[in-house]
C-alpha cells in the first residue's frame, strides 16, 4: 500500500511515537508523579492511534443532523470513537486512584522518589 510519509506519520507513527514517549518516561523516571504523567501520555498516544484507525479522509462526523439526513458511506467510523470514550473515562479513574496512592505513599515515607523508596527497603 502506498502512503506518503506525512500521512504515515499522522496515522500510525506519530501516535505510536507518543505512546513510546510515555513508555520511555515510565521506564526512566524516578518520580512517582512523573510516572503517573507518563501513564497519561501513553493513553494519549493510544487514543490518537485508535481514532486515527477510524478516520476516513473527507469523512463526516458520525451524527445525523438536518444537513445529513441519510446514511453516507463517507462517515468516519463511530466504533473507535465509542471505544476511546470508554478508554478516557477508565484512564481518568485509574489516574484518580494512582494519585491518591502517591499522596499516601508520600504521607507514609516522606518522599515520592523511587530510588529513595527503594533504599528504605520496605
Amino acid at each position, binding site marked *: 500500500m502506498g502512503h506518503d510519509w506525512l500521512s504515515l506519520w499522522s496515522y500510525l507513527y506519530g501516535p505510536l511515537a507518543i*505512546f513510546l514517549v510515555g*513508555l520511555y518516561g515510565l521506564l526512566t523516571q524516578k518520580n512517582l508523579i512523573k510516572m503517573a504523567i507518563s501513564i497519561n501520555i*501513553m493513553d494519549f498516544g493510544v487514543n490518537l492511534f485508535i481514532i486515527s484507525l477510524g478516520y476516513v479522509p473527507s469523512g463526516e462526523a458520525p451524527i445525523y443532523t438536518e444537513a445529513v439526513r441519510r446514511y453516507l458511506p463517507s462517515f468516519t467510523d463511530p466504533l*473507535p470513537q465509542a*471505544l476511546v470514550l470508554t478508554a478516557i473515562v477508565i484512564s481518568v479513574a*485509574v489516574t484518580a*486512584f494512582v494519585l491518591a496512592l502517591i499522596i499516601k505513599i508520600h504521607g*507514609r515515607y516522606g518522599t515520592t522518589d523511587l530510588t529513595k523508596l527503594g533504599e528504605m527497603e520496605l
Partner: protein
Amino acid sequence: MIMQNPVLLIAVPLLLAFLIPVLSSFFKGAVRFIPVLAGGFNVIAAALLIPQASGSLTVTEIGGWASAYGISLLFSSQMGYVILAVNLTALLAIFYYTLNERDLGSPLAYPIAFTLALSGVNGMIMTGDLFNLFVFMEMTAIAGYIIASHKEGYLGTFRFVVLSSVGSVLFLMATAALYNATGFLNMTLAGKSLDTLAAPFISIISVLFIMALSSEAELLPLNGWVPRVYKDSSGTGSVFFASVFSGAALFAVIKVMLMVFGSRYAYVHQGLLVLGLVTLAAGEAAAFKQTNIKKMVAFSSIAQSGLIIAAVAAAMSSGVLHNGLFSAALFQLINNILAKALVLLGIAMLGQATLQEIGGAGTKKKWLGVLISVGVLSLIGMPGFAGFWSKFFLIRELVGSGMLVFILVFLLAALFEVYYYLRFLQALFLGKSTAPVSSPKPSWVTFILLFVLAALIILIGFAPDYMIQAVSGFNPGGVL
C-alpha cells in the same frame, strides 16, 4: 427460565455492589454480608447453569443485538466448572473476611471491591467480545488495586497499577488494530477474518495481547507486582489474587488464544509455549530462595500460571486442538485454584510471616496443620490428592505427543516445588519457633471453610475421572 441466563452472574453482584453505599447509611452492620450474598448467589447460579450446558459454546446476546456486532457472553460446561471453582473460592474467602478481618480501614471499600471483583472475573471468563474483555479486565484490576492497598501495601499496589496500566494500553492497541484490519470486535469473527492478513501483523497483535493479559495472569513480562502485593495483602486479599483473579485472567488468555488465533498459527502458540516455560522455570527458581511464606506462594503461583499457559499453548501448537492436553490444563487450573486458596487461608490463620517464625506451629494447631498439608500435598502432586491427577494426565499427554523439552522443564520445576514445599511442611511441624506465637484464635466456623476446600481436593483425588470427563471435549467452534 430467567435464572438460566449467565448474565445474572455479572448483573446481580453489580446491583448488590451499587446498593452497598445506600444500605450502609441505614444499616451499618449489614454491609459486610452483601459480598457473601453475591458470592452465594453466584455459586448457586453457576451450579444450576452447568447441567444445562454442553461442551459446545452457547451464546447469550446482551441487549438483543445479533452477536456478530453486539456483545455476547459465551458459556460451556467447561467454563461452568472454572466459574464454579473461582466463585466458590471467592465465596469462602469472603466468608473468611466476614469472620476474621473486620476492622480494616474504610467500611465500604472491601465489600464493594469484593462484590465487583466477582462481576469482573465472571465477565472476564464469559465475554466473547474483545473490548468488553478490556472493560472487565480494568474492573477486576481496580478491584484488585483496592484489595492490594487495603493493608497499607501502597508500594506494591503502585507497582501493580503501573504494570496493569501498561498492559491495558497494549490491550487497547491490539484490539483497535485488530478491529481496523478485520472489522470485528467479536473474538470468533475477528479470528475468522485473520487469514487474509500478513504474518508480521498477526505476530505483533498476538504479542501485544499476551503482554497485555500477562499482568493479571501473572505471566512473565508484567508480573513484577506479584510477590510484593501477596506479602502485603490480607489473607482474603491473597486468596483473591492467587485463585480468583489469576484463575479468571488465565482463562481469559486461553480464550483469546483459542478464539482469535485458533490453532492455525503455530508460531503464535510456540511463542506462548516458550513464554509459559520461562515463567514456570523463573517462578520456581525464585520461590526456591524465599523465606517469607507468602512470597514463596506468590512465586509458586507465577510458576503455576506459566505451567498452565504452556500446557494450553502446547495443546494448540500442533495445528489442531489437542483435546487431552487441553483438558488436563483446565483440570490443573481448577486444582490450582482450590489448593492455593486452601494454603493461603491456612497461612493467614497461622498468622506468621517467615519460615523461622512459623516453626512448629503445626504441632500446636493440629487441625490447621493437617488442613494446610492437604493443600500443600495437592500442590506438589502427592499421589491420592487432586493435584497428582492433573499433573499425571498432563505428563501422560505430553509423553504421548513427544514434547521432550516441556517434560524436562516440567519435571525439574516439579522437583524444585516438592523441595520448597516440603521445607515449608518441615518448618510447620518440626521447626522451633523463634518468635512468640500470638496469633488470634480463629472460630470453628473458619475451620469449616478450610474443611470444604480440603474435602473438595480429596474428593477430586478420589474421582479424577469424573473431573477430567467434565472438563474435556471443549469445542471452541460452533459459535455463530
